[in-house]
């Protein structure tokens, strides 16, 4: 009976039955990639953010500038003074001097093997963690530490981080823009296909109306058609998108790990990509329903 009803409007013989799934697949594919990109970029930004938020780096120069008064003390004493000052500061959770090895690892790209030699008079670096809620005011901290050891500088990474986050946000914005555009294009396509279906089958619709079919009966046929095509297309698009992402993730893991930042998605994030074809299907179905009901309302 249900099958029989569906045939009242012969939509499955229209060109739309063959083309719409591929158009939807194409759009879902693009939306999936764009959404994945947005999520990945957000992951990276979050990693940076939580990696750097609440962290300060304090540099104690190897020897005080000539103008300073405490030229007598060695670097160790100066570092200890700074560490003491830091630990007394409210809101500071911990302060640790970077070891020789850590310094060497940081500087290796710039200084080569020489970075490891103990006799290189590098500034001491102190990694400080603060309680984000009670972070000390930066300028006053700078002043206090400079008093503890002249020439000491505090860096809260905000400049670098700010720029990186701005790039990330822009990339995300672009991705969201693409998703929105694709969504709009999908709606336009479904409206178009439905309108076209209505005009191809106008005589059928009029006749059904004339022999006493309710509007919902007619709308249901278009709705089911759009649902089926949308779902097919959505799943094809998702499958292709997932395959592309998987290949990319593999490639990133193997080859480009050092250059490209962490671009992998967590499992819930992978699942959230499922929303794309489902949304496409829903959009297709509702668009078809609304378009048909509006057209029918114009029949007396």
């Amino acid at each position, binding site marked *: 009976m249900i099958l*029989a*009803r569906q*045939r*009242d409007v*012969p939509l499955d*013989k229209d060109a739309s039955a063959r083309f719409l799934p591929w158009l939807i697949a194409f759009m879902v594919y693009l939306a999936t990639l764009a959404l994945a990109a947005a999520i990945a970029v957000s992951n990276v930004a979050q990693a940076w953010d939580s990696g750097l938020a609440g962290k300060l780096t304090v540099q104690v120069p190897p020897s005080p500038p000539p103008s300073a008064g405490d030229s007598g003390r060695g670097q160790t004493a100066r570092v200890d003074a700074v560490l003491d000052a830091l630990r007394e500061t409210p809101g500071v959770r911990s302060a640790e001097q970077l070891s020789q090895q850590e310094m060497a690892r940081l500087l290796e790209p710039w200084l080569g093997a020489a970075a490891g030699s103990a006799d290189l008079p590098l500034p001491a670096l102190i990694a400080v963690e603060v309680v984000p809620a009670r972070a000390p005011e930066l300028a006053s901290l700078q002043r206090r530490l400079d008093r503890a050891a002249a020439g000491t500088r505090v860096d809260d990474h905000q400049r670098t981080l700010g720029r990186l986050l701005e790039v990330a946000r822009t990339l995300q914005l672009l991705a969201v823009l693409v998703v929105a555009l694709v969504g709009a294009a999908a709606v336009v396509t479904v409206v178009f296909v439905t309108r076209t279906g209505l005009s191809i089958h106008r*005589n*059928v619709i*009029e*006749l*059904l*109306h*004339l*022999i*006493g*079919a*309710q*509007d919902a*009966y007619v709308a249901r046929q278009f709705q089911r058609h759009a649902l089926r095509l949308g779902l097919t297309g959505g799943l094809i698009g998702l499958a292709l998108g997932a395959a592309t992402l998987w290949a990319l993730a593999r490639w990133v893991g193997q080859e480009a790990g050092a250059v490209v930042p962490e671009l992998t998605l967590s499992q819930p994030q992978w699942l959230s990509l499922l929303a794309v074809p489902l949304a496409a299907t829903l959009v297709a179905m509702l668009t078809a329903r609304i378009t048909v009901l509006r057209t029918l309302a114009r029949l*007396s």
Partner: protein
Amino acid sequence: MRSRVEESGLVRFDQVSFNYGPNAPVLRDVTFHLPPGSFHFVLGASGAGKSSLLQLMYLWQKPTSGRISLFGRDVAQLTRADKALMRRRIGVVFQDFRLLDHLSARENVALPLRVAGRYTSGLDEHVRELLAWVGLGDYLDALPPTLSGGQQQRVAIARAVIARPSLLLADEPTGNVDDRIALRLLYLFEELNKMGTTVVIATHNENLIERLGHPTIRLTGGDSRHPAIAHPPVLPAADA
């Protein structure tokens, strides 16, 4: 309700005028009522407004002024859902058939039953008999585009009568068949009429009208007013 219908007519037109958009009126101040179980012919020249009159009756057009009631109810008061239900009690043979090209003759005929939710496989036998009766026993599964003009018209007639409507409206239902088949089809209408269906038939076929002798509604107007031109205007031939 039955009594209201009895006294006011199954179809009642009160001072009904009708025109398409801003054009000259097609129908002007038409008043009549058709008692339940009556059989009327609608006559008039081509363009006189016969089809328009039927369209008002099957709720496809709305009157420009005046009042139409069907089955005792003012049609202007009906909701969309009411109208759908009322249409299920009206069988229509459209002048241009309006068959669904993708459904077989049998499915086309069964469509009103299905839309009304009244279709059961038991009725399939009835559909077949009816198609056989109009001479299409061999064309049960043919699609309308593969039928001749007269065959299509007969499918349209079968579809209009299948659900035993209370009101049957037929617009030029015999224009594509010869007089022998036309008489047979009218016999079908008369049979239905005897069982209580109110019948209204718009036609040009004066032969049939004379033979059956039912009351007529005659529409004047239309475009019979254009003067004849003595010789048909004919171009010089293209080839030679």
